[in-house]
């Protein structure tokens, strides 16, 4: 089982000391991701889904439990996980290119300068910033800045991609565009991805599996939904798929009704489900 999973969260718990005793944000999260899988964690704002992602990123400390990525237990942040933050978090005194180069220089320090520049240029071109890569974030629109954020994450050649509500601050048209950009890059790079969002349509369009989190305190995994749509996905086809609306309803119902239920003590066995999803995804990844 553990040999199959690429990322494994094991009894992951986060709590803060508070005047009324320990405030438990998330409790006993067990989750396994297969290599190349795109998993979305969905839940109400403040339910602790971002906390889980930030623990995987290493930016938030783990109270108990553990995270294993590619056979190694994670300890602190590192460039092996490319992160796309909600705000693009670009350094405003550097151009888009320099922002990407900052990461590339760290990861590919053995490569020579020209090669590293080529990597940065390649990813910036892929996200559609070929002409604007030497502009500073201040001169770019919010959507373009997030494109730089995506390019920066992928340019690290990370083992994993972590996306923290990456399109939360964008208008819906830009959001659609960037979802396509993200999906294209993800298919090209075959990076394992974990995304946090509260947008049901975004989750359905992008992911292989959707993990629904119950509300905090002591938030846990309430439900895991397989997304059966074939890849490569086309937004219209996905929306016309007979399963789309039932799944969408199921998700919304979960968010509305079941969200306040306490996390189940026995977490459903997910490993067989993963392999099923994987089988469906595999042909598209090759194509």
């Amino acid at each position, binding site marked *: 089982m553990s040999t199959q999973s690429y990322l494994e969260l094991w009894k992951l718990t986060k709590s803060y000391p508070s005047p009324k005793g320990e405030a438990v944000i998330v409790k006993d999260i067990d989750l396994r991701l297969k290599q190349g899988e795109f998993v979305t964690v969905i839940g109400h704002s403040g339910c602790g889904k971002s906390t889980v992602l930030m623990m995987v990123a290493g*930016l938030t400390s783990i109270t108990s439990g553990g995270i294993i990525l590619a056979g190694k237990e994670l300890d602190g942040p*590192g*460039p092996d996980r490319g992160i796309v*933050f909600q705000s693009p978090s670009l*350094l405003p005194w550097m151009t888009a290119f320099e922002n990407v180069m*900052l*990461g590339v220089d*760290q990861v590919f320090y053995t490569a020579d300068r020209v090669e590293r520049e080529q990597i940065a240029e390649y990813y910036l071109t892929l996200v559609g910033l070929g002409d604007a890569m030497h502009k500073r974030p201040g001169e770019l629109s919010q959507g373009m800045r997030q494109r730089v954020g995506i390019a920066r994450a992928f340019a690290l050649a990370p083992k994993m991609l972590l996306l923290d509500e990456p399109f939360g601050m964008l208008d819906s048209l830009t959001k659609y565009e960037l979802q396509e950009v993200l999906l294209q890059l993800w298919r090209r790079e075959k990076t394992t991805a974990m995304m946090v969002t509260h947008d049901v349509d975004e989750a359905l369009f992008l992911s292989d599996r959707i993990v629904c989190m119950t509300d905090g305190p002591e938030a846990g995994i309430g439900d895991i939904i397989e997304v059966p749509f074939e890849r490569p996905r086309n937004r219209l086809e996905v929306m016309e798929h007979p399963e789309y609306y039932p799944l969408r309803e199921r998700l919304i119902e979960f968010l509305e009704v079941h969200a306040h239920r306490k996390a189940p003590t026995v977490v459903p066995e997910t490993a067989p489900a993963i392999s099923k999803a994987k089988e469906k995804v595999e042909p598209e990844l090759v194509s």
Partner: protein
Amino acid sequence: MKWIQRLGLDAVLLPLVGVFMCLIVWSGISGKSVTTKTKDDWGDVVTTTKRTGISADLPGPMETWEKSRSYILNPLAKRGELDQGILRFTWLSLTLVVQGYLIALVVGTPLGFCLGLSKTFGKMFDPIFQILRPVSPLAWLPLGMVLFLSAKIQVPGFGAYTASELAAVFTIAICSMWPTVLNTAVGVRAIPQDYLNVAKVLKLSPAKTLVKVLIPATLPYMFTGFRLSLGIAWLVIVAAEMLTGRPGVGGFLWQQYNALSYSHIILCILTIGVVGYALDRLMSFIESRLRAA
């Protein structure tokens, strides 16, 4: 007032009106020399010169100009160590200020970074900084004298420094350091968590984090500190030169006070004001260029 604005004259005209009004008040309260001739009891003519007015000894605007014109019209003249043109005095003062100011920046900026970055360092030294910060230059100078009493430092290219010069530089440095220290610390604390997360995720080395993230993010705050520090450094110069008797604008002011030549005090005050304003403008200009870059 509308027509003034329409002509774009308000920027020039209104300040002139303000200056004129101040000159009137100044003339009003200043004293005048009045020469009277009287016959005394023995029939001799006695000439007496007396100053009259609200503040009898304060020279008026015209008198100030008459007595100061040689210093202004020959700004680079050097008639003696303590009798030089006003620009020459300004230059002497500026060189001293710059030395103290640069020391303040070199010492203050790293202190500010430490204060902003480390809570332990902050807890250790912040109380000391808060206590030392309001101490007047007049209080620091004697300590500086004591500190450098037996020191005679030879700096290549600058010549030898006497104890009083070192004390003056020390006073300028320690008084003007605080805005740089505190503003840098505030700037470091104000760095958005996002930027720090980027540094953490990319595992930048401490040196690279400093150069690529911390310093650029703090730069606007640092420059505000630098600008305030320069203002204070210039403020301190008068006290430093007064007490050390060094030639310069402040030294000249004190010497002329002792020589009962009150017009020159006003000349010095105006010079100090103009130079201080020019320095502040200069720093603002550099600051705005930096922000735009």
